[in-house]
């Protein structure tokens, strides 16, 4: 045996679970692949173009302003880009999608100090920015073209030129039921499969469900949040439906709009969701409740984005009131989180 051996001297524990933040992030990306594939199937090249534009906006911003040059590799900017792309209309001008990515990344995440520091989900910050800046473009849902390889709408519109010269638009299931001249609820089966009009990646509830369950089984996603959102949405909208206040059936509520994508992928963003299981139930309850309220009484057809952003703002408060009970005590009197 050699006299001098190079050994590590560290404090315990000396072994680690194989999980890593980078692995979690990239497995989220992998779980979104079926959703992306279905988006291309339903909306043709437009879908992939919109996704690429928003991903490019996010990655470039992270690379330029991120805390270190390697931070792009952790996968979180990729997720933000994909999620933003997936919740935009397929005919969305690409320069706007790119700008949304830049804004979401820059003002939703990096300005707070990068990964782990942000309060709001960066993809939703990007989308909220686009909603405010381009209210017409973001609510323009092109009706299907005869050939799927045709572009949907005005992807290549130039910045600040008058957009949408000759697009034929059609309503989404939510918009149709709420604001349409002839409100008819889209069958739930269509909502599940995704053969409907809507944002790039929000149409097929079934595939989002598959991806979400895959992540939950692998322990990379806190299933308490989506379950809490779904239970709340279902029960609250069911109540309003039964007593005749709203025309949305609870099943329609669950599978329409951005609820699936939002509940599985955006609300569960670890950085912007509560720490404890109890907190996650509370968080999901708030999102479900706000979504139903905005959908029924709000000025917009969809309320998932604002519900999640509002509840993101409440996370520090939720963390404070849901401190775990210390072992060997009846409650946590002194505990308080920052």
């Amino acid at each position, binding site marked *: 045996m050699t006299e001098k051996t190079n050994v590590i001297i560290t404090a315990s524990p000396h072994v680690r679970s194989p999980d*890593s933040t980078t692995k979690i992030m990239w497995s989220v990306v992998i779980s979104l692949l079926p959703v992306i594939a279905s988006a291309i199937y339903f909306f043709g090249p437009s879908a992939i173009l919109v996704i690429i534009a928003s991903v490019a906006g996010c990655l470039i911003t992270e690379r330029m302003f991120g805390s270190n040059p390697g931070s792009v590799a952790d996968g979180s900017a990729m997720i933000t880009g994909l999620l933003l792309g997936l919740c935009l209309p397929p005919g969305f001008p690409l320069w706007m999608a790119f700008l949304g990515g830049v804004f979401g990344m820059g003002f939703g995440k990096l300005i707070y100090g990068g990964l782990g520091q942000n309060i709001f989900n960066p993809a939703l910050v990007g989308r909220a920015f686009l909603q405010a800046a381009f209210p017409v473009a973001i609510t323009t849902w092109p009706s299907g073209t005869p050939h799927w390889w045709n572009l949907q709408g005005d992807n290549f519109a130039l910045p600040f030129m008058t957009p949408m010269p000759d697009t034929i638009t059609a309503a989404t299931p939510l918009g149709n039921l709420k604001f349409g001249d002839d409100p008819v609820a889209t069958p739930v089966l269509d909502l599940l499969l995704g053969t409907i009009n809507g944002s790039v990646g929000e149409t097929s509830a079934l595939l989002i469900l598959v991806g979400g369950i895959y992540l939950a089984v692998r322990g990379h996603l806190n299933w308490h949040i989506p379950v809490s959102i779904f239970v709340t949405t279902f029960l609250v909208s069911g109540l309003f439906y039964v007593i005749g206040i709203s025309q949305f059936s609870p099943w329609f509520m669950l599978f329409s709009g951005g609820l699936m994508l939002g509940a599985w992928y955006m609300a569960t963003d670890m950085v912007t969701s509560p720490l404890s299981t109890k907190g996650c139930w509370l968080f999901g309850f708030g999102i479900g409740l706000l979504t139903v309220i905005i959908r029924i009484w709000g000025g917009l057809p969809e309320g998932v984005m604002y519900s999640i952003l509002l509840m993101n703002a409440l996370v520090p408060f939720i963390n404070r009131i849901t401190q775990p009970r210390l072992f060997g005590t009846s409650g946590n009197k002194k505990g308080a989180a920052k």
Partner: protein
Amino acid sequence: MRGLPSFKHGVHPPENKEITSGIPSKRFPFPKEVILPLSQHIGMPSKALVKPGDRVERGDVIAEAAGFISSTVHATAAGTVKSIELWPHPSGQMIPSIRIAVDPNSSQMRRNRIVPRWQDVKDEDLSKEIAKAGIVGLGGAAFPSHVKLCPPKDQPIELLIINGSECEPYLTSDHRVMLEQPEMVYEGIRIELKALGITRCVIGIENNKPDAIEVMRNAKPADLDATIQPLTVKYPQGAEKMLIKAIMGREVPSGALPSAIGAMVQNVATAANVAAVFQSGHPLIERIMTVSGRGIRKPGNWKIPFGTKLRDVIEHCGGLTDDVAEILFGGPMMGQAISDLDVPVLKGTGGILVLSKDECKRQDIMPCIRCGKCLEACPIFLNPQWMKELAKAERYEELVAEAHLNDCMLCGCCSFVCPSNIPLSQYFAMSKTQLKRLPKS
């Protein structure tokens, strides 16, 4: 595994017990020199009774307890006292230690010692005999057993819990004790029960040791009120509070001792050594230790005399492999990394682990993504995510008063699960050390 009692939260690291669990323990050859630090236990360092040049026989008292919470040290091999000097200790400090040059011609027989039959000793005097034999808790903390067996008068003990869970990965020394000396364990249980003045005991064994559960069941004396309770395999099942929760279904109040709810936990190896005291007058001078890990060529279970240098242990076990990365005393979750091959093995050393590079990969620390996995892992229900922020900001007073640092037992579950590899429990260990340095106000 469902249905077996356990506690909430915790983690399940790879067990890696199969490396040594099937290898019977063998006597380790006597080294040329033994180093016996005066601090091998929690409490005041012992007071040396020998001086350089003295001849000592194996089992002779060489240092006595200095105060109640202290322990007696015995010569673990016959030979001549070389010196009493500062020597590297597993804790990383230099500690006054008695160096004994082992006599190669000695038979290493123990001096005959007359011991009373334990049945004839008064209940309250049993702990005195145990103190004389230098018995400390062999579960890892090395707390003097005679102190533990004298609980506060106003908190009577009702149930003795014997800890055979051995939840640390790799370690199999307690497993071997149960397989090889079940009757000694039971004898020790009888003595401990008599010392406590009670009759009932439960033996908790993790369910990954079905052979130990069977052997212990078969060896159980019919007249002893003992139950063998298989437990869910989960770390840290062997932590006192977790074991009590699993077996009694009750939580030890925060800041209190298990005696507050009438429980006492003793390790299986401690019980076996208590029995040895009265059977043969055998003081605590050696114990079964697991030598394991992928970094050592010949892993096994050995009955090693205390004071044997790490160097001698490694040499006898075939030496280190080329990809050795870390040497530990204890298990991988709470063990102590050793920097010096001259460090001796001590009473509290349950295992010597030599981890290879594959077993303890260095991983980059990423930013905290507030995933909450540490909260889901903490068996004490602390908030490691928040505690880490306080520790980083050196807000130690808040860390203790509001975040309950004192309840943290440094089990390492939070660090184990953290996907960003943030050294959480390491922060807490450092904070505890810093707090000790602060003047008491």
